[in-house]
Protein backbone atom coordinates (compact mmCIF):
# COMPACT_ATOMS: atom_id res chain seq x y z
CA UNK A 1 0.00 0.00 0.00
CA UNK A 2 3.05 2.27 -0.01
CA UNK A 3 2.20 3.46 -3.51
CA UNK A 4 -0.85 5.23 -2.13
CA UNK A 5 1.20 7.14 0.38
CA UNK A 6 3.28 8.69 -2.34
CA UNK A 7 0.37 9.76 -4.53
CA UNK A 8 -2.59 11.92 -3.77
CA UNK A 9 -5.82 10.01 -4.29
CA UNK A 10 -8.12 10.75 -7.20
CA UNK A 11 -10.57 12.52 -4.91
CA UNK A 12 -7.81 14.74 -3.60
CA UNK A 13 -6.61 15.58 -7.09
CA UNK A 14 -10.09 16.57 -8.11
CA UNK A 15 -10.06 19.10 -5.30
CA UNK A 16 -6.58 20.40 -5.86
CA UNK A 17 -7.36 24.06 -5.20
CA UNK A 18 -8.55 24.69 -8.71
CA UNK A 19 -12.02 25.06 -10.16
CA UNK A 20 -14.46 22.18 -9.81
CA UNK A 21 -13.28 19.46 -12.15
CA UNK A 22 -15.56 16.46 -11.59
CA UNK A 23 -18.57 15.91 -13.87
CA UNK A 24 -22.01 16.91 -12.60
CA UNK A 25 -23.24 20.11 -11.01
CA UNK A 26 -22.14 21.93 -7.89
CA UNK A 27 -23.98 24.73 -6.18
CA UNK A 28 -23.28 26.88 -3.12
CA UNK A 29 -26.32 27.18 -0.82
CA UNK A 30 -27.07 28.46 2.69
CA UNK A 31 -25.29 31.69 1.81
CA UNK A 32 -27.57 34.08 3.63
CA UNK A 33 -29.35 31.80 6.08
CA UNK A 34 -26.95 29.22 7.46
CA UNK A 35 -27.86 25.54 7.68
CA UNK A 36 -28.58 24.86 11.34
CA UNK A 37 -27.25 21.45 12.29
CA UNK A 38 -28.63 19.13 14.98
CA UNK A 39 -25.46 19.78 16.96
CA UNK A 40 -26.41 23.46 17.14
CA UNK A 41 -23.61 24.55 14.80
CA UNK A 42 -24.57 26.87 11.96
CA UNK A 43 -22.96 26.04 8.63
CA UNK A 44 -22.97 28.61 5.85
CA UNK A 45 -21.87 28.47 2.22
CA UNK A 46 -22.66 24.77 1.91
CA UNK A 47 -21.55 23.33 -1.42
CA UNK A 48 -23.67 20.54 -2.82
CA UNK A 49 -22.51 18.38 -5.71
CA UNK A 50 -25.32 16.68 -7.57
CA UNK A 51 -26.47 15.31 -10.86
CA UNK A 52 -29.84 14.97 -12.56
CA UNK A 53 -31.31 12.77 -15.27
CA UNK A 54 -34.51 13.14 -17.27
CA UNK A 55 -36.67 16.24 -17.60
CA UNK A 56 -38.70 18.06 -14.99
CA UNK A 57 -42.29 18.30 -16.20
CA UNK A 58 -44.36 21.49 -16.38
CA UNK A 59 -45.95 21.25 -12.93
CA UNK A 60 -42.76 19.86 -11.40
CA UNK A 61 -44.53 16.75 -10.17
CA UNK A 62 -42.24 14.04 -11.56
CA UNK A 63 -39.08 14.53 -9.48
CA UNK A 64 -37.50 11.56 -7.72
CA UNK A 65 -34.68 12.03 -5.24
CA UNK A 66 -32.25 9.14 -4.95
CA UNK A 67 -30.30 8.99 -1.67
CA UNK A 68 -26.94 7.27 -1.65
CA UNK A 69 -25.42 5.00 1.00
CA UNK A 70 -22.34 5.41 3.21
CA UNK A 71 -19.69 5.15 0.52
CA UNK A 72 -21.87 6.07 -2.44
CA UNK A 73 -22.07 9.35 -4.28
CA UNK A 74 -24.11 11.09 -6.96
CA UNK A 75 -22.59 9.05 -9.81
CA UNK A 76 -25.72 6.92 -10.00
CA UNK A 77 -25.95 6.30 -13.73
CA UNK A 78 -22.80 7.38 -15.50
CA UNK A 79 -19.38 5.78 -14.92
CA UNK A 80 -17.60 6.97 -11.80
CA UNK A 81 -15.09 9.73 -12.68
CA UNK A 82 -12.34 8.23 -10.50
CA UNK A 83 -12.84 4.47 -10.67
CA UNK A 84 -14.43 4.31 -14.13
CA UNK A 85 -16.90 1.74 -12.77
CA UNK A 86 -20.56 1.90 -13.86
CA UNK A 87 -22.90 4.12 -11.81
CA UNK A 88 -23.88 2.43 -8.56
CA UNK A 89 -27.58 2.18 -9.41
CA UNK A 90 -27.44 2.15 -13.21
CA UNK A 91 -29.53 -1.04 -13.19
CA UNK A 92 -32.34 0.85 -11.41
CA UNK A 93 -32.09 4.40 -12.79
CA UNK A 94 -32.07 5.06 -16.52
CA UNK A 95 -34.22 5.12 -19.65
CA UNK A 96 -36.85 2.37 -19.40
CA UNK A 97 -35.48 1.19 -16.06
CA UNK A 98 -37.28 0.93 -12.70
CA UNK A 99 -36.83 4.65 -12.12
CA UNK A 100 -37.45 5.56 -15.72
CA UNK A 101 -35.55 8.69 -16.70
CA UNK A 102 -37.76 8.99 -19.79
CA UNK A 103 -40.64 9.80 -17.42
CA UNK A 104 -39.10 11.02 -14.19
CA UNK A 105 -36.69 13.77 -13.31
CA UNK A 106 -34.13 12.08 -11.09
CA UNK A 107 -31.84 13.91 -8.68
CA UNK A 108 -29.01 12.60 -6.56
CA UNK A 109 -26.66 14.72 -4.48
CA UNK A 110 -23.50 13.87 -2.62
CA UNK A 111 -24.39 13.90 1.09
CA UNK A 112 -23.29 16.57 3.54
CA UNK A 113 -20.00 15.37 5.02
CA UNK A 114 -19.19 13.49 1.83
CA UNK A 115 -16.04 13.78 -0.24
CA UNK A 116 -17.23 14.01 -3.83
CA UNK A 117 -17.99 17.70 -3.99
CA UNK A 118 -20.45 18.39 -1.18
CA UNK A 119 -19.10 20.23 1.85
CA UNK A 120 -17.26 17.85 4.15
CA UNK A 121 -14.26 17.60 6.47
CA UNK A 122 -11.71 17.67 3.66
CA UNK A 123 -12.92 21.08 2.46
CA UNK A 124 -11.46 24.36 3.49
CA UNK A 125 -13.11 25.96 6.49
CA UNK A 126 -14.08 29.42 5.18
CA UNK A 127 -13.42 30.95 8.60
CA UNK A 128 -9.83 29.65 8.95
CA UNK A 129 -8.89 28.97 5.32
CA UNK A 130 -7.53 25.57 6.46
CA UNK A 131 -9.02 22.12 5.86
CA UNK A 132 -11.77 21.41 8.36
CA UNK A 133 -10.43 18.08 9.56
CA UNK A 134 -11.92 17.28 12.96
CA UNK A 135 -13.11 20.87 13.35
CA UNK A 136 -15.88 19.96 10.95
CA UNK A 137 -19.10 19.73 12.98
CA UNK A 138 -20.55 16.30 13.63
CA UNK A 139 -23.49 15.85 11.30
CA UNK A 140 -26.63 13.73 11.38
CA UNK A 141 -28.86 12.06 8.84
CA UNK A 142 -31.32 14.89 9.58
CA UNK A 143 -28.66 17.44 8.60
CA UNK A 144 -27.98 15.59 5.35
CA UNK A 145 -31.68 15.73 4.52
CA UNK A 146 -32.01 19.43 5.38
CA UNK A 147 -29.09 20.08 3.00
CA UNK A 148 -30.89 18.06 0.31
CA UNK A 149 -34.03 20.10 0.96
CA UNK A 150 -32.06 23.27 0.21
CA UNK A 151 -31.03 21.76 -3.11
CA UNK A 152 -34.58 20.68 -3.95
CA UNK A 153 -35.83 24.21 -3.21
CA UNK A 154 -32.99 25.61 -5.28
CA UNK A 155 -34.24 23.46 -8.17
CA UNK A 156 -37.71 24.98 -7.67
CA UNK A 157 -39.36 21.72 -6.63
CA UNK A 158 -42.01 21.86 -3.92
CA UNK A 159 -43.01 18.21 -3.70
CA UNK A 160 -40.92 15.22 -4.63
CA UNK A 161 -42.87 12.47 -6.33
CA UNK A 162 -40.64 9.94 -4.58
CA UNK A 163 -37.56 9.61 -2.42
CA UNK A 164 -35.72 6.29 -2.66
CA UNK A 165 -32.56 4.77 -1.27
CA UNK A 166 -31.00 1.72 0.33
CA UNK A 167 -29.01 1.29 3.53
CA UNK A 168 -28.01 4.76 4.79
CA UNK A 169 -29.91 6.07 1.77
CA UNK A 170 -32.98 4.43 3.30
CA UNK A 171 -32.36 6.32 6.54
CA UNK A 172 -32.43 9.57 4.57
CA UNK A 173 -35.68 8.46 2.94
CA UNK A 174 -37.25 7.89 6.37
CA UNK A 175 -35.91 11.22 7.58
CA UNK A 176 -37.41 12.98 4.54
CA UNK A 177 -40.80 11.45 5.24
CA UNK A 178 -40.49 12.40 8.90
CA UNK A 179 -39.23 15.98 8.48
CA UNK A 180 -41.01 16.97 5.29
CA UNK A 181 -44.11 14.77 4.92
CA UNK A 182 -45.86 17.38 2.79
CA UNK A 183 -42.94 17.46 0.36
CA UNK A 184 -42.83 13.72 -0.31
CA UNK A 185 -45.53 11.79 -2.14
CA UNK A 186 -43.93 8.35 -1.91
CA UNK A 187 -41.03 7.00 0.15
CA UNK A 188 -39.05 3.87 -0.67
CA UNK A 189 -36.67 2.94 2.15
CA UNK A 190 -34.76 -0.23 1.24
CA UNK A 191 -32.68 -2.58 3.43
CA UNK A 192 -32.48 -0.07 6.25
CA UNK A 193 -33.52 0.65 9.83
CA UNK A 194 -35.18 3.45 11.79
CA UNK A 195 -32.42 3.27 14.37
CA UNK A 196 -28.88 2.01 14.17
CA UNK A 197 -28.47 -1.24 16.09
CA UNK A 198 -25.75 -1.92 18.67
CA UNK A 199 -24.18 -4.39 16.24
CA UNK A 200 -24.03 -1.81 13.47
CA UNK A 201 -22.59 0.85 15.78
CA UNK A 202 -20.01 -1.75 16.78
CA UNK A 203 -19.00 -2.44 13.17
CA UNK A 204 -18.72 1.28 12.49
CA UNK A 205 -16.54 1.72 15.55
CA UNK A 206 -14.14 -0.94 14.27
CA UNK A 207 -13.84 1.02 11.03
CA UNK A 208 -13.25 4.31 12.79
CA UNK A 209 -10.65 2.84 15.11
CA UNK A 210 -8.82 1.34 12.12
CA UNK A 211 -8.59 4.83 10.59
CA UNK A 212 -7.68 6.62 13.78
CA UNK A 213 -4.97 4.13 14.70
CA UNK A 214 -3.18 4.73 11.39
CA UNK A 215 -0.25 7.09 12.21
CA UNK A 216 -0.90 8.89 8.92
CA UNK A 217 -4.27 10.00 10.22
CA UNK A 218 -2.35 12.66 12.24
CA UNK A 219 -5.18 13.30 14.66
CA UNK A 220 -7.45 14.06 11.69
CA UNK A 221 -5.13 16.75 10.30
CA UNK A 222 -3.51 14.61 7.60
CA UNK A 223 -4.33 17.06 4.80
CA UNK A 224 -2.09 19.68 6.40
CA UNK A 225 0.67 17.09 6.72
CA UNK A 226 0.38 15.94 3.13
CA UNK A 227 -0.56 12.44 4.27
CA UNK A 228 -3.56 10.18 4.06
CA UNK A 229 -4.41 7.23 6.35
CA UNK A 230 -4.81 4.80 3.48
CA UNK A 231 -3.99 1.70 5.51
CA UNK A 232 -6.54 2.44 8.20
CA UNK A 233 -9.21 3.40 5.68
CA UNK A 234 -8.55 0.22 3.67
CA UNK A 235 -8.95 -1.95 6.77
CA UNK A 236 -12.17 -0.11 7.65
CA UNK A 237 -13.47 -0.84 4.17
CA UNK A 238 -12.46 -4.51 4.34
CA UNK A 239 -14.27 -5.05 7.64
CA UNK A 240 -17.36 -3.23 6.40
CA UNK A 241 -17.35 -5.04 3.08
CA UNK A 242 -17.79 -8.39 4.84
CA UNK A 243 -20.99 -7.08 6.41
CA UNK A 244 -22.41 -6.19 2.99
CA UNK A 245 -22.23 -9.78 1.81
CA UNK A 246 -23.56 -13.06 3.15
CA UNK A 247 -21.84 -16.27 4.07
CA UNK A 248 -23.59 -17.97 1.18
CA UNK A 249 -22.40 -15.34 -1.28
CA UNK A 250 -18.82 -15.47 0.01
CA UNK A 251 -18.80 -19.26 -0.12
CA UNK A 252 -20.24 -19.31 -3.62
CA UNK A 253 -17.81 -16.72 -4.90
CA UNK A 254 -14.62 -17.90 -3.20
CA UNK A 255 -15.12 -20.96 -1.03
CA UNK A 256 -11.66 -21.88 0.24
CA UNK A 257 -10.09 -21.40 -3.18
CA UNK A 258 -6.46 -20.32 -3.21
CA UNK A 259 -5.19 -17.23 -5.00
CA UNK A 260 -2.83 -18.03 -7.93
CA UNK A 261 -1.21 -20.93 -6.09
CA UNK A 262 -1.66 -24.64 -5.61
CA UNK A 263 -0.96 -24.86 -1.90
CA UNK A 264 -0.91 -22.64 1.16
CA UNK A 265 2.41 -20.85 1.68
CA UNK A 266 2.66 -21.08 5.46
CA UNK A 267 2.87 -17.30 5.57
CA UNK A 268 0.63 -14.26 5.68
CA UNK A 269 0.31 -13.50 2.01
CA UNK A 270 -3.16 -13.53 0.57
CA UNK A 271 -3.27 -17.30 0.17
CA UNK A 272 -7.02 -17.37 -0.17
CA UNK A 273 -9.00 -15.69 -2.92
CA UNK A 274 -11.27 -14.10 -0.37
CA UNK A 275 -8.29 -12.36 1.24
CA UNK A 276 -7.08 -11.10 -2.09
CA UNK A 277 -10.56 -9.86 -2.90
CA UNK A 278 -10.87 -7.95 0.36
CA UNK A 279 -7.43 -6.40 -0.02
CA UNK A 280 -8.41 -5.25 -3.48
CA UNK A 281 -11.66 -3.79 -2.13
CA UNK A 282 -9.70 -1.92 0.53
CA UNK A 283 -6.97 -0.58 -1.72
CA UNK A 284 -9.29 0.66 -4.47
CA UNK A 285 -11.61 2.30 -1.97
CA UNK A 286 -8.93 4.69 -0.67
CA UNK A 287 -8.55 6.18 -4.16
CA UNK A 288 -12.02 7.60 -4.03
CA UNK A 289 -12.83 8.19 -0.39
CA UNK A 290 -11.71 10.52 2.36
CA UNK A 291 -10.93 8.99 5.76
CA UNK A 292 -12.45 11.79 7.81
CA UNK A 293 -15.61 11.64 5.71
CA UNK A 294 -15.81 7.97 6.66
CA UNK A 295 -15.63 8.92 10.34
CA UNK A 296 -18.27 11.62 10.06
CA UNK A 297 -20.72 9.66 7.97
CA UNK A 298 -20.53 6.50 10.09
CA UNK A 299 -21.11 8.71 13.14
CA UNK A 300 -24.22 10.15 11.54
CA UNK A 301 -25.52 6.62 10.99
CA UNK A 302 -24.84 5.67 14.60
CA UNK A 303 -26.76 8.69 15.87
CA UNK A 304 -29.75 7.83 13.71
CA UNK A 305 -32.81 6.98 15.80
CA UNK A 306 -36.05 8.35 14.39
CA UNK A 307 -38.07 7.44 17.47
CA UNK A 308 -35.84 9.38 19.83
CA UNK A 309 -37.89 12.55 19.55
CA UNK A 310 -41.02 10.62 20.54
CA UNK A 311 -39.96 8.77 23.69
CA UNK A 312 -38.62 5.96 21.54
CA UNK A 313 -42.03 5.41 19.95
CA UNK A 314 -41.42 5.33 16.24
CA UNK A 315 -45.14 5.07 15.52
CA UNK A 316 -45.70 8.58 16.83
CA UNK A 317 -43.08 9.92 14.41
CA UNK A 318 -45.28 8.84 11.52
CA UNK A 319 -48.76 9.37 12.93
CA UNK A 320 -51.24 10.32 10.19
CA UNK A 321 -48.46 10.75 7.63
CA UNK A 322 -49.77 11.39 4.10
CA UNK A 323 -46.73 9.66 2.56
CA UNK A 324 -47.12 6.33 0.75
CA UNK A 325 -44.37 3.92 1.76
CA UNK A 326 -42.77 0.87 0.22
CA UNK A 327 -40.35 -0.88 2.58
CA UNK A 328 -38.23 -3.69 1.15
CA UNK A 329 -35.76 -6.04 2.81
CA UNK A 330 -33.69 -9.02 1.67
CA UNK A 331 -33.73 -12.44 3.32
CA UNK A 332 -29.93 -12.79 3.61
CA UNK A 333 -29.21 -9.21 4.75
CA UNK A 334 -27.79 -9.49 8.26
CA UNK A 335 -26.63 -5.86 8.46
CA UNK A 336 -30.15 -4.46 8.14
CA UNK A 337 -32.17 -7.62 8.60
CA UNK A 338 -35.84 -8.02 7.75
CA UNK A 339 -36.67 -7.74 11.45
CA UNK A 340 -35.43 -4.14 11.55
CA UNK A 341 -37.21 -3.22 8.33
CA UNK A 342 -40.36 -4.76 9.72
CA UNK A 343 -40.08 -2.52 12.78
CA UNK A 344 -40.51 0.41 10.42
CA UNK A 345 -43.56 -1.27 8.92
CA UNK A 346 -45.07 -1.96 12.34
CA UNK A 347 -44.59 1.67 13.32
CA UNK A 348 -46.17 2.86 10.08
CA UNK A 349 -49.11 0.51 10.58
CA UNK A 350 -49.53 1.78 14.11
CA UNK A 351 -49.77 5.26 12.61
CA UNK A 352 -52.31 3.92 10.08
CA UNK A 353 -49.95 4.95 7.28
CA UNK A 354 -50.24 3.75 3.71
CA UNK A 355 -47.46 1.17 3.61
CA UNK A 356 -46.40 -1.76 1.51
CA UNK A 357 -43.74 -4.18 2.61
CA UNK A 358 -42.01 -7.02 0.78
CA UNK A 359 -39.18 -9.25 1.87
CA UNK A 360 -37.22 -10.22 -1.25
CA UNK A 361 -35.67 -13.67 -1.44
CA UNK A 362 -31.94 -13.28 -2.10
CA UNK A 363 -28.74 -14.90 -0.88
CA UNK A 364 -26.57 -11.91 -1.76
CA UNK A 365 -26.71 -10.15 1.60
CA UNK A 366 -27.09 -6.42 2.15
CA UNK A 367 -25.58 -5.59 -1.26
CA UNK A 368 -28.61 -7.17 -2.94
CA UNK A 369 -30.20 -3.72 -3.26
CA UNK A 370 -27.40 -2.75 -5.66
CA UNK A 371 -27.52 -5.94 -7.71
CA UNK A 372 -29.74 -7.38 -10.40
CA UNK A 373 -32.60 -8.84 -8.38
CA UNK A 374 -35.54 -9.19 -10.78
CA UNK A 375 -38.23 -9.53 -8.09
CA UNK A 376 -36.91 -6.49 -6.26
CA UNK A 377 -36.98 -4.45 -9.44
CA UNK A 378 -40.43 -5.71 -10.39
CA UNK A 379 -41.98 -4.76 -7.05
CA UNK A 380 -40.18 -1.41 -7.00
CA UNK A 381 -41.37 -0.55 -10.51
CA UNK A 382 -44.92 -1.71 -9.81
CA UNK A 383 -45.10 0.42 -6.69
CA UNK A 384 -43.92 3.50 -8.60
CA UNK A 385 -46.48 2.77 -11.32
CA UNK A 386 -49.25 2.59 -8.74
CA UNK A 387 -48.06 5.84 -7.14
CA UNK A 388 -47.90 7.51 -10.54
CA UNK A 389 -51.53 6.57 -11.09
CA UNK A 390 -52.57 7.89 -7.67
CA UNK A 391 -50.56 11.05 -8.31
CA UNK A 392 -52.18 11.55 -11.69
CA UNK A 393 -48.93 11.13 -13.61
CA UNK A 394 -48.99 9.49 -16.97
CA UNK A 395 -48.78 5.70 -16.78
CA UNK A 396 -46.12 3.83 -18.62
CA UNK A 397 -47.23 3.17 -22.20
CA UNK A 398 -47.78 -0.59 -22.44
Amino acid at each position, binding site marked *: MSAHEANASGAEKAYANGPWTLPGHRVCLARETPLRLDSGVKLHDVHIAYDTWGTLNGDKSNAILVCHALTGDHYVVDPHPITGKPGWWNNVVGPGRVIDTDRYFVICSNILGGCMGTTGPQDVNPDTQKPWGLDFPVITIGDMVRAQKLLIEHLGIETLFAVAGGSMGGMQVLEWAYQFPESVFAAIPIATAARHSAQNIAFNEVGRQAIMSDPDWCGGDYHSHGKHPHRGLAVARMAAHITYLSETALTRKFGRSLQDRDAVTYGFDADFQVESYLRHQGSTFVDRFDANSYLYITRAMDYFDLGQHHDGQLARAFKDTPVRFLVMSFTSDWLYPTRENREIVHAL*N*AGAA*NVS*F*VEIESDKGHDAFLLDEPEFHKVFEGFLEGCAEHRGLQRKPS
Partner: protein
Amino acid sequence: MMMMAADGEANPKSIRIDLQLIADMIEPGTRVLDAGCGNGMLLDYLWREKQVDARGIEISTQGVQACVSAGLSVVQGNVETDLKDYPDDAFDYVILSQTLQAMHEPREVLAQMMRIGKRAIVSLPNFAYWRLRLYIMFKGRMPVSDKLPYEWYNTPNIHFCTISDFVALAKEMNLSIEKSLFLDEEGTSKTIGKSILAANWLGEQAVFLLRK
Protein backbone atom coordinates in the same frame (compact mmCIF):
# COMPACT_ATOMS: atom_id res chain seq x y z
CA MET B 1 -53.59 -7.53 -12.04
CA MET B 2 -55.18 -10.93 -12.23
CA MET B 3 -58.77 -10.49 -13.20
CA MET B 4 -61.40 -12.91 -14.24
CA ALA B 5 -62.51 -12.35 -17.79
CA ALA B 6 -65.16 -9.70 -18.09
CA ASP B 7 -68.46 -11.31 -18.93
CA GLY B 8 -69.55 -8.60 -21.33
CA GLU B 9 -72.18 -7.23 -18.93
CA ALA B 10 -72.47 -3.57 -18.00
CA ASN B 11 -70.27 -4.20 -14.98
CA PRO B 12 -66.78 -3.21 -16.15
CA LYS B 13 -64.95 -5.56 -13.79
CA SER B 14 -65.98 -8.99 -12.75
CA ILE B 15 -64.67 -10.71 -9.64
CA ARG B 16 -65.31 -13.99 -7.88
CA ILE B 17 -68.88 -14.15 -6.61
CA ASP B 18 -68.03 -14.31 -2.89
CA LEU B 19 -65.69 -11.33 -3.31
CA GLN B 20 -68.46 -9.48 -5.15
CA LEU B 21 -70.79 -10.05 -2.20
CA ILE B 22 -68.17 -8.57 0.12
CA ALA B 23 -67.56 -5.63 -2.20
CA ASP B 24 -71.30 -4.91 -2.32
CA MET B 25 -71.32 -4.48 1.47
CA ILE B 26 -68.70 -1.70 1.32
CA GLU B 27 -69.56 1.97 1.03
CA PRO B 28 -67.55 3.88 -1.61
CA GLY B 29 -64.68 6.10 -0.49
CA THR B 30 -64.10 4.26 2.79
CA ARG B 31 -60.90 2.87 4.29
CA VAL B 32 -60.57 -0.89 4.08
CA LEU B 33 -58.07 -3.53 5.25
CA ASP B 34 -58.21 -6.90 3.52
CA ALA B 35 -56.55 -9.31 5.95
CA GLY B 36 -55.21 -12.14 3.82
CA CYS B 37 -55.66 -10.42 0.48
CA GLY B 38 -54.08 -13.10 -1.74
CA ASN B 39 -53.20 -11.69 -5.14
CA GLY B 40 -55.20 -8.53 -4.46
CA MET B 41 -58.25 -9.16 -6.63
CA LEU B 42 -60.69 -7.65 -4.15
CA LEU B 43 -58.42 -4.72 -3.26
CA ASP B 44 -57.95 -3.85 -6.91
CA TYR B 45 -61.70 -3.93 -7.48
CA LEU B 46 -62.43 -1.81 -4.40
CA TRP B 47 -59.86 0.80 -5.38
CA ARG B 48 -60.91 1.07 -8.99
CA GLU B 49 -64.66 0.66 -8.72
CA LYS B 50 -65.40 2.11 -5.28
CA GLN B 51 -62.57 4.62 -4.78
CA VAL B 52 -61.73 2.86 -1.54
CA ASP B 53 -58.47 3.53 0.35
CA ALA B 54 -57.55 -0.15 0.17
CA ARG B 55 -54.83 -1.85 2.19
CA GLY B 56 -53.89 -5.50 2.55
CA ILE B 57 -51.94 -8.03 4.57
CA GLU B 58 -50.72 -11.17 2.86
CA ILE B 59 -48.42 -13.90 4.11
CA SER B 60 -47.24 -15.36 0.79
CA THR B 61 -44.31 -13.70 -0.96
CA GLN B 62 -45.89 -14.41 -4.31
CA GLY B 63 -49.17 -12.76 -3.32
CA VAL B 64 -47.50 -9.66 -1.88
CA GLN B 65 -45.30 -9.24 -4.93
CA ALA B 66 -48.29 -9.52 -7.24
CA CYS B 67 -50.18 -6.91 -5.19
CA VAL B 68 -47.39 -4.36 -4.79
CA SER B 69 -46.31 -4.77 -8.40
CA ALA B 70 -49.90 -3.92 -9.33
CA GLY B 71 -49.77 -0.74 -7.29
CA LEU B 72 -51.73 -1.99 -4.26
CA SER B 73 -50.71 -1.14 -0.68
CA VAL B 74 -49.98 -4.52 0.84
CA VAL B 75 -47.76 -5.56 3.72
CA GLN B 76 -46.15 -8.97 3.91
CA GLY B 77 -47.21 -10.33 7.26
CA ASN B 78 -49.25 -12.71 9.32
CA VAL B 79 -52.86 -11.78 10.05
CA GLU B 80 -52.76 -13.73 13.26
CA THR B 81 -49.89 -11.71 14.75
CA ASP B 82 -49.93 -8.39 12.89
CA LEU B 83 -53.44 -7.00 13.41
CA LYS B 84 -52.40 -5.93 16.89
CA ASP B 85 -50.00 -3.35 15.33
CA TYR B 86 -52.87 -1.23 14.04
CA PRO B 87 -54.56 1.44 16.17
CA ASP B 88 -58.21 1.27 17.25
CA ASP B 89 -60.77 2.10 14.56
CA ALA B 90 -58.07 2.56 11.89
CA PHE B 91 -60.41 1.25 9.19
CA ASP B 92 -64.06 1.45 8.23
CA TYR B 93 -64.02 -2.21 7.28
CA VAL B 94 -61.68 -5.10 7.99
CA ILE B 95 -62.20 -8.05 5.67
CA LEU B 96 -61.29 -11.66 6.36
CA SER B 97 -62.19 -13.71 3.36
CA GLN B 98 -62.12 -17.53 3.53
CA THR B 99 -59.37 -17.35 6.14
CA LEU B 100 -60.94 -17.49 9.63
CA GLN B 101 -60.95 -21.28 9.56
CA ALA B 102 -57.17 -21.30 8.99
CA MET B 103 -56.40 -19.23 12.10
CA HIS B 104 -55.00 -20.74 15.27
CA GLU B 105 -57.09 -18.38 17.39
CA PRO B 106 -60.10 -17.38 15.28
CA ARG B 107 -61.86 -15.70 18.16
CA GLU B 108 -58.86 -13.52 18.96
CA VAL B 109 -58.46 -12.59 15.27
CA LEU B 110 -62.12 -11.59 15.12
CA ALA B 111 -61.70 -9.52 18.29
CA GLN B 112 -58.70 -7.72 16.75
CA MET B 113 -60.64 -7.07 13.56
CA MET B 114 -63.43 -5.48 15.55
CA ARG B 115 -60.92 -3.39 17.48
CA ILE B 116 -59.13 -1.93 14.45
CA GLY B 117 -62.21 -1.66 12.24
CA LYS B 118 -65.59 -0.08 12.74
CA ARG B 119 -67.04 -3.04 10.90
CA ALA B 120 -65.78 -6.46 9.94
CA ILE B 121 -66.70 -8.62 6.98
CA VAL B 122 -66.06 -12.34 7.33
CA SER B 123 -66.62 -14.96 4.69
CA LEU B 124 -66.24 -18.64 5.47
CA PRO B 125 -66.97 -22.12 4.18
CA ASN B 126 -69.91 -23.71 6.01
CA PHE B 127 -68.94 -27.10 7.36
CA ALA B 128 -72.60 -27.98 7.92
CA TYR B 129 -73.42 -27.66 4.20
CA TRP B 130 -75.61 -30.64 3.30
CA ARG B 131 -73.15 -32.23 0.87
CA LEU B 132 -70.43 -32.21 3.52
CA ARG B 133 -72.83 -33.70 6.07
CA LEU B 134 -73.72 -36.52 3.65
CA TYR B 135 -70.04 -37.04 2.78
CA ILE B 136 -69.24 -37.74 6.41
CA MET B 137 -72.44 -39.72 6.97
CA PHE B 138 -71.96 -42.07 4.01
CA LYS B 139 -68.20 -42.15 3.52
CA GLY B 140 -67.15 -41.66 7.12
CA ARG B 141 -64.16 -39.64 5.87
CA MET B 142 -63.23 -35.98 6.15
CA PRO B 143 -64.82 -34.22 3.16
CA VAL B 144 -62.68 -33.38 0.13
CA SER B 145 -64.24 -31.31 -2.65
CA ASP B 146 -63.47 -28.66 -5.27
CA LYS B 147 -63.89 -25.95 -2.65
CA LEU B 148 -62.12 -27.91 0.09
CA PRO B 149 -59.43 -29.76 -1.84
CA TYR B 150 -57.22 -30.76 1.11
CA GLU B 151 -56.80 -34.01 2.99
CA TRP B 152 -57.18 -33.82 6.78
CA TYR B 153 -53.41 -34.09 7.28
CA ASN B 154 -52.37 -31.24 4.99
CA THR B 155 -55.28 -28.84 5.23
CA PRO B 156 -54.58 -25.26 6.34
CA ASN B 157 -58.17 -25.22 7.58
CA ILE B 158 -57.72 -26.13 11.20
CA HIS B 159 -60.80 -24.50 12.72
CA PHE B 160 -63.79 -25.29 10.58
CA CYS B 161 -67.11 -23.94 11.76
CA THR B 162 -70.70 -23.82 10.60
CA ILE B 163 -73.02 -20.89 9.98
CA SER B 164 -74.75 -21.66 13.30
CA ASP B 165 -71.39 -21.78 15.09
CA PHE B 166 -70.40 -18.40 13.73
CA VAL B 167 -73.72 -16.79 14.62
CA ALA B 168 -73.32 -18.16 18.15
CA LEU B 169 -69.77 -16.76 18.41
CA ALA B 170 -70.91 -13.34 17.22
CA LYS B 171 -73.62 -13.36 19.88
CA GLU B 172 -71.18 -14.42 22.56
CA MET B 173 -68.83 -11.58 21.55
CA ASN B 174 -71.71 -9.07 21.55
CA LEU B 175 -71.27 -8.33 17.85
CA SER B 176 -74.30 -7.39 15.87
CA ILE B 177 -74.74 -9.01 12.48
CA GLU B 178 -75.82 -6.22 10.15
CA LYS B 179 -76.01 -8.39 7.07
CA SER B 180 -75.63 -12.11 6.46
CA LEU B 181 -75.73 -14.00 3.21
CA PHE B 182 -75.18 -17.58 2.15
CA LEU B 183 -74.21 -18.95 -1.22
CA ASP B 184 -75.85 -22.15 -2.39
CA GLU B 185 -74.29 -24.64 -4.77
CA GLU B 186 -75.44 -22.69 -7.82
CA GLY B 187 -73.62 -19.68 -6.45
CA THR B 188 -76.86 -17.82 -5.80
CA SER B 189 -76.73 -15.61 -2.74
CA LYS B 190 -79.59 -15.48 -0.28
CA THR B 191 -80.12 -13.62 2.95
CA ILE B 192 -79.63 -15.72 6.05
CA GLY B 193 -81.65 -13.50 8.35
CA LYS B 194 -83.61 -15.54 10.88
CA SER B 195 -83.53 -18.76 8.88
CA ILE B 196 -80.22 -19.93 10.26
CA LEU B 197 -81.07 -23.64 10.29
CA ALA B 198 -82.02 -23.62 6.61
CA ALA B 199 -78.99 -21.56 5.67
CA ASN B 200 -76.81 -23.91 7.65
CA TRP B 201 -78.11 -26.80 5.57
CA LEU B 202 -78.12 -25.12 2.14
CA GLY B 203 -75.20 -22.71 2.35
CA GLU B 204 -71.86 -23.75 0.92
CA GLN B 205 -70.35 -20.43 1.99
CA ALA B 206 -71.49 -17.50 4.09
CA VAL B 207 -70.65 -13.79 4.35
CA PHE B 208 -71.27 -11.73 7.50
CA LEU B 209 -71.13 -7.98 8.01
CA LEU B 210 -70.46 -7.37 11.71
CA ARG B 211 -70.52 -4.32 13.91
CA LYS B 212 -69.49 -3.71 17.50
